[in-house]
């Protein structure tokens, strides 16, 4: 009789406090249940409290993996984008979140990992490694990445320059990038305020764009960043 083959979870020796920060995350029944309930509550809150209006939902690809790229005015951006993807994708939708902020303590990590399903993105030291994590993630069919290429929330309302990360991710790879623009986030929840205010939000999702025809040179990276920046700004109509 042959001996059985076991598949121990890779993170079996990792304490909970550390496994919350780890990525990719092991799927857990309890985490999925909590996240599903949270997603439903979030959608209800967005529809009623913020009167969230989503335009261009038909642009979301029905299958395959893709990246949502959005301007960044408040924490509501992530929540709006999470509410825009189909509910069944919620466990495969990963907002890239600054590791130094969203994973700085155990309670914060728990919220980021369990409720938001965030991907800990190191925006300071190990940017290249975080990007490699992102592109590995997108190789799996059905995974969605949410990225804010400005890298931080705006305080003035003017959109910041897109950092090179999205360019390096997209240039030369067969990846659908959807530009998105959220209007009203700055008024609803400015940086530094504890709680959001009941202001209207308007999310526009643009058409998917693929940059596989480009090479991976620094020029192409810049071109991709500039192109996406322009597309996002155009969606917003220069408003805000």
């Amino acid at each position: 009789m042959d001996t059985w083959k076991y598949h121990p979870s890779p993170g079996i020796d990792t304490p909970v406090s550390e496994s919350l920060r780890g990525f990719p995350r092991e799927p857990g029944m309890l985490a999925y249940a909590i996240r599903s309930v949270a997603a439903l509550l979030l959608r209800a809150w967005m529809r009623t409290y913020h009167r969230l209006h989503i335009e261009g939902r038909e642009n979301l690809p029905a299958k395959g993996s893709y990246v949502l790229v959005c301007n960044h005015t408040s924490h509501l951006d992530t929540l709006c984008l999470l509410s825009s993807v189909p509910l069944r994708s919620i466990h495969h939708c990963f907002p890239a979140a600054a590791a130094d902020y969203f994973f700085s303590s155990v309670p914060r990590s728990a919220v980021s990992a369990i409720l938001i399903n965030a991907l800990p993105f190191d925006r300071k030291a190990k940017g290249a490694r975080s990007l490699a994590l992102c592109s590995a993630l997108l190789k799996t069919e059905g995974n969605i990445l949410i990225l804010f290429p400005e890298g931080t929330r705006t305080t003035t309302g003017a959109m910041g320059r897109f950092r090179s990360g999205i360019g390096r991710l997209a240039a030369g790879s067969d990846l659908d990038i959807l530009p998105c623009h959220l209007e009203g986030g700055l008024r609803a929840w400015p940086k530094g305020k504890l709680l959001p205010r009941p202001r209207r939000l308007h999310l526009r999702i643009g058409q998917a764009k693929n940059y596989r025809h480009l090479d991976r040179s620094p020029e192409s990276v810049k071109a991709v960043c500039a192109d996406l920046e322009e597309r996002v700004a155009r969606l917003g109509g220069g408003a805000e």
Partner: protein
Amino acid sequence: MSIDFAINSPVFLRYLLIVGGLLLFAGVVLGSLRLAGRNVASPLRTYRGWLIMIPIVLGTLFLGREATILGVTLLAAVGFKEFARATGLYEDWWMTGIVYLAIFALGAVSLVPDPRLGSPGWYGFFMASPVFVIALILLVPIVRNRSRGELQKVALAILGFIYFGWMFMHLGFLANTGNAYGYLLFLVFAVEINDVAAFTFGRMFGKRKLRERISPNKTLAGSVGAIAISLVLPWLLWFSFPHFSPALLVLTGLIVGVGGQLGDLVISYIKRDIGIKDMGATIHGHGGILDRVDSMIFVAPIFFHMVRWFNGAG
């Protein structure tokens, strides 16, 4: 079993004093060893683990029957989760989910009164539960129309429920007996002392290995020493069950001394077969929950049925 009872119970108070005194003593010993320049980093980590665990356990018992049963149910669920993650059963959500449900159902069965007799805890259903749960687990491959690799999953799920769920949860059912505080406090205390004694005697006198292909650190001397300590403990702590005859005290000592070490060895060969060191990393300095409660899994059901056999439901 309730807060009122615990406050007025001399048994609870005595255990509080004993455990507090032992913790203080161990703290002083570790502290002075450290001052003497010895490296005590590893025992200190274990000690810190105890400092967190003991108040949680005593606090849960203090809160009474419902809290105790709930606590044991949660421990069983986490213990099963560790087992499922270690074997890979965790990837199968049907099996894992059914065993989780069964464990929580068993917790509920321990809480509700017997519909016929009205006594706390539905004893008949608790004892018959493996019939239904095993049937349910066996049905999963049929419902999913699968056969490849299903026997292994079914077997692991059944073992997971029976061993880590049903057998361990006899500990929670003890909360329904009239002398719950005495039994539970004694069992938890004696099983842990048995563990510590096996380790200490093994370190001091151990030469011959007990079962070298299962657990290379366990020695015959440690095992004999632990059984000796466990045989003495019921006499010292007779106040926990004043109605026990001397013969029952000997039997209790044997159940704790032998059963505790068997439980330890069972987890050891499970870990060895899988090829892992610890079942998890839940308790800092102790490994997983299962690495801590492994000895109790054998002791709890056998002690429970001994009490029931000789004392009726009391």
